[in-house]
């Protein structure tokens, strides 16, 4: 083999190019980036516990939808016994009135595009991202 130097150089260049985003993030400190969410100020507790809501909010919404649409019942009894009206625009958005810095920020970070608001109407006074409907 006469091209050892060239092959090694080629591999090196390839690795530098491929790994550059990783290095860039490590050097600039962006690897540990997590979106900073603005939590509602007037309410400390969501319908269920925060870890549950963080991972299962879509399952809860799906359950609410099922109960409301299929059975017509509208009151949800949470694990702690408190009752809530099952409504995305009416109940969730009452506390989470900063949609842009809570819902949208995390959904953008995780590249999730929920289509709730194609039909449900964002209540007035709720802060939204202007770009949300642009997709």
């Amino acid at each position: 083999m006469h091209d050892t130097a060239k092959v090694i150089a080629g591999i090196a260049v390839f690795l530098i190019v491929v790994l550059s985003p990783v290095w860039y993030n490590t050097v600039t400190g962006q690897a540990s980036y997590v979106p900073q969410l603005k939590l509602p100020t007037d309410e400390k507790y969501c319908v269920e516990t925060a870890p549950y809501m963080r991972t299962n909010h879509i399952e809860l919404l799906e359950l609410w939808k099922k109960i409301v649409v299929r059975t017509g019942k509208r009151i949800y009894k949470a694990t702690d016994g408190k009752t809530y009206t099952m409504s995305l625009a009416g109940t969730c958005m009452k506390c989470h009135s900063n949609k842009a810095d809570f819902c949208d920020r995390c959904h953008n970070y995780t590249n999730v595009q929920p289509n709730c608001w194609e039909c449900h109407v964002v209540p007035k006074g709720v802060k939204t991202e202007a770009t949300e409907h642009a997709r």
Partner: protein
Amino acid sequence: MNRRDFLKLACFSVVGTPARSVFDRLTGKDIAGPTKEGQPKWAMVVDLKMCASKPGCRDCVDACHSIHNVPAFNNPKDEVKWVWTDSYKNIFPEQSHRFVSVEVQTRPVLILCNHCENPPCVKVCPTRATFRREDGIVMMDYHRCIGCRYCMAACPYGARSFNWKDPRPFIKKIKEDFPTRTKGVVEKCSFCEERLAKGLKPACVEACTTKALTFGDLNEPNSQVRNLLASKPNIRRKAYLGTEPKVFYLE
């Protein structure tokens, strides 16, 4: 059990299973259907004469369409409607012969989803997006609708509309407390299920100034609808199809 008995029994059960439902139908199951204790069965009675007493009236249509965010497309091909009117001779072709007075023939008839007891739209829906609730309301779960429009083909009353376009730009004033629909879903009247849950009457009934619309519970023997149906001759659209519509018309 020997082989012969087993085969006999198998044959009987195969024949017997569907025969049961046929038997039930032939023996005349009540239109109110199986009743759960305290379970209402919603129905509407439309008095055509009273309705016609205010020519050109659109109070109920406007009320319904505005609270449910129903879009107003200018093109009739794209039209979305929950309640609307058509002439008597179009809606009751089997009732209108040449001796029916012109006044009756041209009378506007208010039409909406009939919330059939035996809804063909529900049978054909491949995703179970449309279904019949125990209180008789034929509902849509817009989340599940894939826009195949089988239900529209199956509905003998043309009560369903399809969103060919994004409806939002065509809604005059979007009401916040009710969702809009999106491009590619079918929609129709829901008997104001969201208002019934609050103990209110359907918006069209409330908006009607001529008292032509009566809404109530068929399972309640003394309800206004039951009294009207018992005391006055009434007709239903295409009742011969066996869909058991729950919108009744007084002539």
